[in-house]
Structure formats: C-alpha cells, structure tokens
C-alpha cells in the first residue's frame, strides 16, 4: 500500500499474479524496467494510469500495480490520450506491440505524435504477432518465413523510430529488452518528458522470432552515449543514426525536443486554468448561453 507522502517503493507495484509469458520473453525485463522507472520518478501507483493494448504486453496488465486499463487491439493511444486530457495530475503510460501499433492502429500513432499528447508510449517491438502464434508484422525482416507467409515476407521492414521522427515526434528513444538498466533510464526520461514520449523497445521473442533473438541484438546494439559529442536535439543527426537496423543499431534517447508544447498546454481556453476536466464535472448554469438564442 502506497501513501500520498511516502517514498515510492518497488514493491508498491507488486502483483501476486504469476506472469504468463514464455521463458526468456523480453516482457519480463520491460515490466521490471517500467516499475523501476515509476519508482525513480516517485510516482505512486494511484498517480499513474498504465494503459495496455492487446497482445503479449497486455497480458501483463494484471501483473503490476497502479490504475490500469486493458483495452482493444490497436487502440491504446487514443484511449491514453483521452485519459491524459481529462486528468493531467496522473501520469499516463501506454504500451502496445508492433502489430497493434503499426498495422491496426497506425493512424493513432501518426496523430498521437502530431498532437504531441502528454503520454509515454512504450512500443514492444518483437517483430511479429506473438500472441496469435507468429504472423508477420510491419517490422518482421524481409524474407523471414512466418506462418501466414510461409515462402517468406515480401514487404520491407519498417523503421519505426525514423517514422516517428519524420512526423515531428518530440521524444524518440530506442532501447533493448535485454538491458533493464538502460530501459529503466530511458523510461524515466520518457515519463519526465512533457509531450508524446516514444520509446521503441527492441524485444526478443524466443518462441516466434527466430530471425532476431537476444544474441542478434546483443551483437549489434550500441548506446548513443558512445558517440562523441552526440547532440540529441539535432534531428538530422538523429535520423542518420536511427537508420541502420541491420548492422549497428543505435539505442538511447535518439532525439529530444524540449521546447515543443504538448497538446493540452496549447489549448487557448485552458490557459490559466489549474483544475483538471475531472475536477470540473458539476451542474452548470447555461442561462447566459441560452439567452443568445432570443
């Protein structure tokens, strides 16, 4: 049990439910890193809304504390955006897989980025539809044999981080499910970002993604902190290093624009109003408004 003034502890997010993910699934690390980031940012469970999409990540919805919502496939972003607009006193963190985000709900990704809603979005990119037993997604490598494309995928794989940068994303990060330490730091920075914080987690799927297992990533990833003088406010530079997804894969906070205002902060009618839309639900006199129809 947390309290309003206590220091937030890792076990505040404890759930007694047993994980149902496969052995070695990247989700274990992601879930642990998310808890660590929430603790590091001192957000108690009652001050967060964790919104989950449908997919393997969503099966973790009842294995963590906090207010949570487990919605429809592909729709977590508009749900989270609507929640964040209603109450800016709670942090909203949305999670979804590559299938949901880049196929069923790609319009939501586009518009959430463009609107710069104040939410953190963790994209679980494991390169396939795991829960439905291994169909190709938009990030499956070209040529891979998946169960609905037995002769090999003929579509190019999508570079999501670059796509979000092109849309004008204000925070674009990439991390790896095998590195809980880096993930925790990036999630923490994403939570602290005011605006749409996009985090792509390169996630191993030991059961269905044989092309890019844990070891494949380990051999290729590097952290942008190892690039001398790397300036993550330089979008051209960020685009350049985000491009390679085959040989040297950049992780870290690739791009960060701290000046871009989030959607709610720009609403003219909400300037100088401190209350939330949740606080304001009350019977309202409309006599003056009706009078204009005389």
């Amino acid at each position, binding site marked *: 049990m947390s309290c309003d003034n206590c220091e937030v502890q890792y076990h505040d997010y404890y759930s007694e439910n047993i994980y149902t993910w496969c052995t070695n699934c990247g989700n274990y690390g992601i879930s642990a890193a998310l808890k660590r980031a929430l603790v590091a940012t001192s957000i108690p469970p009652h001050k967060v809304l964790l919104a989950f999409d449908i997919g393997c990540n969503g099966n973790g919805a*009842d294995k963590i504390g906090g207010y949570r919502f487990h919605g429809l496939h592909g729709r977590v972003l508009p*749900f989270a955006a609507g929640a964040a*607009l209603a109450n800016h006193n709670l942090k909203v963190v949305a999670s979804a897989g590559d299938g949901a985000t880049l196929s069923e709900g790609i319009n939501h990704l586009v518009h959430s980025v463009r609107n710069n809603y104040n939410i953190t979005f963790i994209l679980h990119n494991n390169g396939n539809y795991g829960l439905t037993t291994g169909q190709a997604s938009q990030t499956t490598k070209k040529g891979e044999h998946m169960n609905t494309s037995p002769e090999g995928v003929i579509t190019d794989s999508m570079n999501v981080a670059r796509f979000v940068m092109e849309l004008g994303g204000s925070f674009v990060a990439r991390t790896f499910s095998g590195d809980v330490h880096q993930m925790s730091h990036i999630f923490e920075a994403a939570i602290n970002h005011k605006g749409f914080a996009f985090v792509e987690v390169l996630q191993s799927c030991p059961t269905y993604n044989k092309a890019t297992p844990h070891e494949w990533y380990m051999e290729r990833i590097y952290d942008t902190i190892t690039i001398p003088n790397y300036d993550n406010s330089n979008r051209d530079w960020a685009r350049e290093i985000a491009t390679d997804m085959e040989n040297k894969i950049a992780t870290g906070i690739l791009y960060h624009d701290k000046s871009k205002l989030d959607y709610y902060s720009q609403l*003219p009618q*909400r300037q100088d109003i401190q209350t939330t839309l*949740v606080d304001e639900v009350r019977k309202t006199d409309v006599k003056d*408004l*009706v009078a204009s129809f005389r």
Partner: protein
Amino acid sequence: MIDRKRITIKFAGESGQGVNSLGEIMSKLIKNSNLYVFAYREYPSLIKGGFASYQLNISDHPISSTTAKCQLLVCQSRSAVHEYLQTLEKNGKLIHTLTKLAFSAEEQEYIAENAIETQYVDSTKLAIESGGSKLMGNMILLGVVTKLMGADLAKLEEIISIQFASKPDLLEKDLICARKGFDLEASVLPAVDISQLDKNNTSAQYLVTGNEALTLGAIAAGTRIFYGYPMTPSSSILTYAAALSQKTGIVVKQAEDEITAVQMAIGSMFMGTRAVVATSGGGFDLMTETISLAGITETPLVCILGQRPGPATGMPTWTAASDLNLAMYGGHGEFPRCVIAISDAYSAFSQIQNALNISEEFQIPVIVLSEKHIAEGLFNVGDFSEMTLDIKRNLTTEESVATERYADTSSGISPRWLPGVLEKTYLGNSDEHLEDGDLTEDAAAAEKMMNKRMRKLSTLKGQLPLPRVFGNLETAKRVCVGWGSTLMAMNDVLATELGSEIAYIHYDFVYPVNLELLRGFMNKPDDVFVIENNQTGQFANLLEHELGVKFHNRILKYNGRPFFFEELVENIKSLMSNS
C-alpha cells in the same frame, strides 16, 4: 382538416445562395412578431448548386411539424422552382428572381388549376440600384416577404441590425435594400397574412436547433470535453461546442476518425470527467467495438447518434430514424446498454443529461438517438435553461473504498471510484475478469460476471419512467406508438379532430423498453399503429419480439423526408378506415 391555423412559407434556391440566412432571419421575425414558428431545412450534400429549401411553419400555437404544402414560395434558382412549384397550395404565390423562367406544360396546368400567382422580382438588379451588392438581393426578398405577410418592417430592421452588427459598413446598405423590397409590394397577401393569427408572447422566447440544445444540455450536466469526427448531421454539435469553448473552458477535439473519437471519450470517462462523442450511422459503425469495450469494462460512455438515411453514404443531408437496431445491437458480445431517443429541442436538452447520469449510475454505454430532422430543425421554445437535472454519478467516496471495483451486487452495479484515489487501484479489463479486474477464463467466474453485468439491465428497466401518453388511452379508438421525431408530427396531429379519436404513446427510452402500457393492447394489437421514419419498423419489431404479438399496422416512411403533418393525418385516417 387543419384545426389550427397555420401559415407556411418556403425559401428555396441553390446551396450557397443564402437560403438559410433568409430562413433564419424570417424565423426570428415571426417569433418576434409574437407567433410560433418551426423551421425545416432540405439541402443537398453539396457546397454549391443543387436545390435547398428553408421552410417556416407558423401558427398561434406551439408547433413542431412541417407541412408538405406551402402558401408562399420564394425561389432563387430554376431547379428549386421545378422541385417545389407543386408544393404550393391553391391561391398560393410564387416569387422568383429568374429572368425568362419557363414552365413545363404540366407546371402551367398546375398554376392554372390552383390559381397560383407568380411574380418576378429582379432582386439582384434592385439591390445594385440601391447601392448594395449582388448578395443583398436577399435583403430585397426579405423586405418583399415582410410586406406580403403584413409583418413589421421596423422589427425586420432590428433583426438585420443585430445580425450584421459586426459589418457596420454593409449594414446601412442591407437596411436600404430591405426597405426597398418592402416598398415594392402594394398590399398584404391574404393567404400568408399574419394578422389572422392570435398573438402570444413568443418574442421573449428562443429559437434553437436540436444540436444546439443537445450541446447545451451536455454542458449543463457537466460535460467538459466533446469528441467527434465531422459527419452530417452531428458536425454542428462540434462546431457549436467549439464556439463555446473560450466562454466555458470546455475542450473540443476533432479526432482523426470515429474510432479515435470514441476511444478518447472512453479514456476521458474512465478517468472521471464527463465526455460526449457525437457521430452519425457510418461513424457509429466504426465505434461499435468500443461500445462493447464500455460494456465489459463497465466504463460510462455517452454517444450521440444523429441519424440520416443509409445504407452506407445513403442521403447524407436528409433525415431518417433507421439506426435503432444499430444502437440496440451494435457491438459484439452481450452486455447491458441504454438507448434514448430525443424528439425535439426540449427533450434534447433534458435527455442528454439523463444519458450522462444513467451512463455513470449504471456504468454502461448510453446511445442518444437523434435525427437530422431534429438536429437541424429550428424550434421555438421557452427558457429551457431551468430544465436541469441533478448530476448523479454514483461514485464511491475515497474513505469507503473497501471492496472490489467489479464486486458482484444484487443490482449488478459495482462500486466505482476514480483513478487518483489512494486507497485501492484497479484494472479496467477488456478480457473477462474477476471482481478485482484481473483476467479470468474460469467458466464459473465468467458466468458470474456476465450475470452481474446483465443484471444492471433489469435494474435500469425498473427505474426508467413510463412512456409519455398523449390523449386518453381508455377512450381512444386507436393508439399510435412512436419514438424520435414522430412526436413532432404527432403533436400537431393530435391537435386536429383526430385528437378525439386517437391517443399517442411516445417512447423517449426505447431500450430497454417499458412494456407496461402496451400490455393492455396485447389482445387487440391491430388497434395499435406504430409510426416510424424507417423501412422495416424497427421499433415495432422490438415490441413484437418483447410482447410476442404482431403489430401489423405500421406507418413507415423512408425516403429521407420527415413525416409531414397533413400526410400523417391522412395516413392515420386511411389506416383507421382500413383496419
């Protein structure tokens, strides 16, 4: 046949010619002349061209229906003349602005047979001669009609002055043109002379559309955010709400599609504000998965479904009441919901408040059915701002959170508290879940939760008010039953001599449906006439299904037009003599 005196005038032209402005200014003039008005718009799904009309029905009693026929027709385009000429009554008058207007042989015959007077007014030329612009031809026409109706020029000038106060340089010219038009006519046209009507104190009243009343009702009930995606006839809810945002602090979000709009709405409602999402049939189709989500997660959700004829794009700017089945059955799986149908500006204002209360009290999706005819109809109403309901949210207070969010209860309604409450967090889960929201696939648990949720429907049914009854059910020879805009026409039908022979049962709450009054007619179902603006009799089918008797006598209309007053009188009479 018409017991109440009624004057009908119609402005018609192409879209883009200012037909609506003419109609709105004239409606205001009629109201300010202490008469009742109801205005009805027809227009194509085009920015320019086609034919559009704005019809005013005027009476010395409150009216809410439109007639098929009119006595004065003012046309600014040839297509409008050919479309509407034969809606003129005997001794009616056509005013047009068209040089060398040619009538077909059939039209000439109609004009001769009905002693229709036609008059050419070169409004554009007159406006330019008076120093005005081409578009000020409309002011000439307003002046002409004001004179023909025997209305007060000073009142017209006052309305124009208020309407165009923001353009003072043009205002003087507008007024000159209106006076010029007024002076063109030598005398009042007896058929539309308003002196034949008794005066009431309507100048103190209001003219409001159904959509404006819905928006105001939602705001009165504490709605702080509106979501939608443009689609006729619901777009103007977003437009009007947006116009109020600076004054009220409400947020209006035009989403990228209807799925987004409804998802954002359920997100906002889950957090605990009041949100409303508005769409039409096609948009609601896209929303149905989320309606089902609201069902299982027991998240309040209110959706306004402004109906228009389908299938698919159908006739986008016309009216229908053909999405009742969609509202009742749209969405996969089985879960409780409520469907409320509005029938005029008053009910729009109050029922949206009911919808928000019910959605929170019962934690269910509520669909508010509107129709293009109501959404865009202009209603002459009294001060409805007092018709507010107390807000009912049924929230558990912070101190008393001791149970589970989805606890099984005798009413089916579980305690609900909002995210942010310290005591106990929970999961809103689209997967079947246990009382704490955690996932389950256990057979007994799933059945228990299905039963718990569906129990709310019986609880709700027990609390919904009876349908409204007009006339005397005991003595009536026949009983009409309807929902939605049927009431608008029936109100006026009941004021004719038919009123002594029939009674009318009107359902505001169409689902779940209260059958109490209708049980009395189970042994004489042929005495019941179900009147609906759709092809298959969707509400009659629901009643048949629930009551287990057949209602063969149905008056159905599905050509994009509402029930016209005199047409419905004839329909009922003919059904009475044939059954």
